[in-house]
């Protein structure tokens, strides 16, 4: 049941983000059964926003350890990475470890996961964008900057979050 829910969400995201060979979803496992998915309303890819991304990872990590008892968040404290799972359109799951502060686009490319990024992460196009499935998580994020919204104006499959 858990898997089918993920797949369904994966397909939904795949419909929205049908670029490259993979749609992506990132989540952290708290426990075997509970799964939380989070994504961002945009991919913050400017160097100066990496710190922002880092803090999001941290926030999430903090949330997971406080919310679940004795569950391993899967994060590697020493290396400063967290687990991210990419789900392809075929339903194939690719779990990877992503250093805190790295963008999703870079993480995908570093692991040979196909994700369109025409401007290579300079906030100059709209080929990669993220859909946050969970309203709660979306609200934890800072509001998108003007520059992000400018790019989102042109994004295919734009949604509220």
């Amino acid at each position, binding site marked *: 049941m858990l898997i089918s829910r993920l797949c369904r969400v994966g397909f939904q995201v795949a419909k929205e983000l049908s670029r490259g*060979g993979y749609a992506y979803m990132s989540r952290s496992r708290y426990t075997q059964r509970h799964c939380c998915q989070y994504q961002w309303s945009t991919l913050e890819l400017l160097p100066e926003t990496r710190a922002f991304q880092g803090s999001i990872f941290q926030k999430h990590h903090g949330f997971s350890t406080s919310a679940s008892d004795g569950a391993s968040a899967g994060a590697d404290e020493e290396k400063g990475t967290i687990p991210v799972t990419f789900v392809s359109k075929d339903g194939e799951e690719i779990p990877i470890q992503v250093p805190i502060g790295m963008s999703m686009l870079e993480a995908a490319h570093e692991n040979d996961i196909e994700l369109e990024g025409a*401007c290579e992460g300079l906030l100059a196009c709209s080929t990669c964008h993220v859909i946050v499935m969970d309203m709660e998580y979306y609200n934890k994020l800072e509001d998108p900057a003007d520059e992000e919204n400018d790019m989102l104006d042109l994004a295919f499959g734009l949604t509220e979050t």
Partner: protein
Amino acid sequence: MAIFRARRVLWRSFSTISSHPLRVCIVGSGPAGFYTAEKILKTHQGSQVDIIDRLPTPYGLVRSGVAPDHPETKNVINQFSRVAQNGRCSFFGNVALGSSISLVELQELYHVVVLAYGAESDRVVGIPGEDLKGVHSAREFVWWYNGHPDGRNLDPDLKNTDTAVILGQGNVALDVARILLRPTSELAITDIASHALTALEQSSIRKVYLVGRRGPVQAACTAKELREVLGIKDLYIHIKETDLKITPADEEEMKNSRIHRRIYELLSKAATAGPSQPSSGQRELHFVFFRQPDRFLESYDKKGYVSGVHLEKTGLKGIGSGKQIAIGTGQFENLSCGIVLKSIGYKSVPVDDLPFDNQKGVVPNVKGRVLSDNSGDPTSFENGLYVCGWLKRGPTGIIATNLYCAEETVASLSEDLELGVLASTTRLPKLGRDGLLQILDNRNVRVVPFSAWERIDKEEKRLGSLRNKPREKLTSREELLKVAGSE
């Protein structure tokens, strides 16, 4: 979801389609061409894709359309060059559809031909005085500052006047305004063509008018570009506050379009933000709304040269489905200037043996499959002939728009292969690349393969490094072919 399922089926059953490698020729090496090539290579393992372009250089408008001060937008070139370097893909520059090789010949050499050659002409305003000297199309002006070989002789006169009028308020219009108004020191470190930089350094233009037929709610530009032009250092921006009045129909339009809503907000803010008068010597950018050109005015002193535009005030009229068009009111005024740049849209050019819709300026098609004629009969297709990009959709959208366009066209192609629609051709082997090169050799066409473009690329970067520019573009065919041919 359906496309996804269909693609999985196609991919799995590819091996049963044909034992001959699928040979595809794509005409045009801009985003539409390259995204299509990438998609075909990925979806059809064993396919061979050749991309031809009439210029010795690839990348279409990414090289000759994107403004010099927008280098990040050009990063997609890295992705395209990886496609060109794929063993199953070849780029052949300096090969023109029509003069070097005909469409019929390509269809004999390849199983599939995809036309992605974009739009290299312009919509005309269609008013008196349009051929006065000093009236140029924005497309040519952009080619000129971007070093396109066909634009280098434009030689626009930027020294006879302090005022330029741009008809149109889309992103190309904003690009042109920005290039005219930006401090040239900022342009000097971009890949702008040297002849253009020199002309701009000597330019006397200080005032630019962006003239639109309709209002701020209908302006065709997008937020990033508008924000950028409004943010130019030390530039006086003028927008008439009365032009910002909106009607219920405008509100409806904005409700349905995030882009238009944000553009209107940006323009409103800009109208009240700055000082009400320019300071002495300050450059000026004026947004003029609700004016359509009636005729171009000829100069008394310089016969044959433009001296202004006769404008008619317009009002908006709803034509259903939320659209409003401009209607003349019979009130006129003149706007003096020494140069006019028409930025009202590109237009595709028809080619022999190719069905063409002159009214829409596109090749008639359904999801990228070329229709045999304009009659509207949706079931009669040209076998093995497809379109992608502006030639298919009309000249709108951004680079990424071609990504989805290519997906659709390749999905149609894949479906046709799967359903055996192309069986009559795929059953036979085709000469493809070898046949093409043989014919071109017989005709003494100097083909520029990708490795030769890489020589041009290297040389341009080298020349650029001498002047603190990312590259110094070679702007004549002769120079390009010389460097391409050298070791």
